[in-house]
């Protein structure tokens, strides 16, 4: 194999070198050959490197895209405020404003709406502040309980017991035209208040 390659290189070298080729098969001195081969190698490596980098831009960009792009939360309509009577905590669902065509049911999102008093709300994310399992509301004891590791929260969302490091995540809300809107989108995370 290596013999073959050398043969090719020699010929190519001769064609490209402009040595006149007076002697037909006469070869340039060994030193010149080596120098040319060294150059060819570096040239090839350089070309491959540039080509690889060019090809890598879209590939890497495609894969890390989601980490860079700025998805916007949007105001989502949870329905008329009358659905949430004063002093009660109610379950509500909405379609996530950030969604893709293939999300299916996964784009549905749930939250807990507490109407503290008429016109004053607290809207909690369904995700436990510990590791994100769905918390459930217990009207009788006025507690949220998490099925995963036993996190418990009071009705105002503050941590009552268990491993969660903080209270429940809360959505920003506003009332417009008699409807309750929340600022929703990305999955709630530890570092932010939603």
């Amino acid at each position, binding site marked *: 194999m290596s013999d073959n390659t050398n043969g090719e290189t020699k010929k190519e070298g001769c064609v490209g070198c402009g040595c006149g080729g007076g002697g037909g098969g006469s070869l340039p001195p060994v030193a010149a050959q080596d120098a040319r081969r060294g150059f060819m190698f570096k040239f090839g490596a350089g070309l491959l490197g540039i080509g690889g980098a060019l090809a890598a831009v879209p590939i890497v960009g495609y*894969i*890390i895209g*989601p*980490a*860079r792009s700025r*998805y916007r939360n949007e105001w989502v309509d949870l329905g008329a405020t009358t659905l949430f009577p004063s002093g009660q905590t109610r*379950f509500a*669902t909405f379609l*996530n404003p*950030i*969604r*893709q*065509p*293939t*999300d*299916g*049911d*996964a*784009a*549905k*999102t*749930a939250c807990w709406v507490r109407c503290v008093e008429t016109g004053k709300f607290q809207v909690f994310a*369904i*995700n436990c502040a*510990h*590791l*994100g*399992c*769905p*918390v*459930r509301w*217990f009207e*009788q*004891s*006025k*507690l949220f*309980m998490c*099925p*995963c*590791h*036993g996190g*418990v929260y*009071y009705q105002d969302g503050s941590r*009552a*017991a*268990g*491993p*969660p*490091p903080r209270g429940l995540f809360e959505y920003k809300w506003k009332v417009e035209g008699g409807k309750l809107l929340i600022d929703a*989108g*990305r*999955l709630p*995370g*530890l*570092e932010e208040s939603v």
Partner: protein
Amino acid sequence: MNRDAIIKLLKQPVQWVEERTGVIAFSAPLLTHHVPRSAKWWYVFGSATLMFFTIQIVTGVCLGTMYAPSASNAWESLRYIDEEIPLGWMLRALHGWSSSAMVVMMAIHMLQVFMHGSFKYPRELNWITGVFLLLTVLALAFTGQVMRWDQDAYWGLGIGAAIVDRVPVFGDQMRALMLGGPIIGGETLNRFFALHVFILPGAAIGLVGIHMTLIMKNGISEMPKPGEIVVPSTYRKEFEERMHKTGVPFFPDAAQRDMVFCGVCLILLVFLAAYYGPFGPGGMPDPTLINTNPRPDYPFMWIFGAVSLLPPASETAIMLISPVIGIAILVAVPFLSNSGERAPSRRPGMMLLAVFVVMAIVALTWEGVTSPWSPVMNGWSALPTPTQFVKGRTPLQMQGAVVFQYAQCRNCHELGGFGGKRGPALDEIATRMSPDQIVRQVQQGGGNMPAFGKNLNSAQMTAIVDFLSTLRPANEPDSTIPGAQLPLPIKSPLTLNEPFTGTGVPAEIATGASSR
């Protein structure tokens, strides 16, 4: 035609291929290489792991012909495979059971190699490629669980995302990278699909290739004997001499044992799959169906257990750092000791370590399965109050039993052996706490119990305390001492988690109470 002519005729195409590919010259040593005569039944587990891996590839490709890798259809397509495609359920069952079997075989193989010190010179890299194979297979198991795209998969991803989110500085970006966006959705499933069917199997096949090449290069280690120590400078030469003199060809001497064991495993696998059927899919992946109790698959149960038992204050650090340390230790094993004794009897410390690790994983798995830290979410509505706790009680006490149930106390506390295990069982609470202490505990909480002060009115509180004060065996006194001054002075904050040994109670009663 005579026999020789036939053989010659048959040989011709073989020679034709061999002359052009060298495939026989290349692969013959795989069968003919010498292995130690002492390599007996201990050595079958690696082969069995490889066999299960092969089953995974075959069944995986089959499932790939029907599975819809899209969050909007994946769950339905699995149901379709289970219910409509002939034998589809069996293919899924084989894939699922073989996956568990592969993890188990791999663990046993690794344990055997560790106990026999087979990772020592010159097989350090055999061990290290094995560690990476283990990680790859675990990653395959996790991504495979995601492929089911049911509630466990969805919330399991949520837990994974929440852990990744805790990485300092880059947590948010890493979470987005993992989920393929800001939510768990279509892109998440497809990312995990690409990992599960392209990247990880490719990595596993490559690693298996390296692992096998190293086995061919370094030979199979002999059964360890006390006193036969590994000296790197002379080991290889002596080993090769011994193989030459006393070794036996892999095929058929060692292979026959592999064949027997793999055969038994395979038959068991088919029966298990046929009898128990496929894993899931569980509830549909609709995050608004929150009456769910997310649990990981068995290979990860011990991690679930460990995460639940971590002290909250340090849990982030432990969750993020311990996997790194764990992997580093596994990789470092052959570097920490690559020569000397291999016999288990001469390495008692290592044996203790192995036993400890196995026991820890078994115990954590058990904790994960029983998850005593999780409230029984329907305890309050579904569990009866055992008759012995209501018989002969006053109306007020019975009212208390109702409040006890109504206020979801039962979700975390057992009565008569049923209920949550998050808090202590209350069958004999009156022997440990006086009514005043009960009031205080219920009102203010503490010791991992929420405060119920705001949620119970005074009538409810009176009733519940009256009821709880009756909870003690008939022959045991309650915690109020005849003649003692009431209320009992409470000097230190008392929690339900600590047995009451406190203040002003004669020692014999206190011990009697806490000996339960």
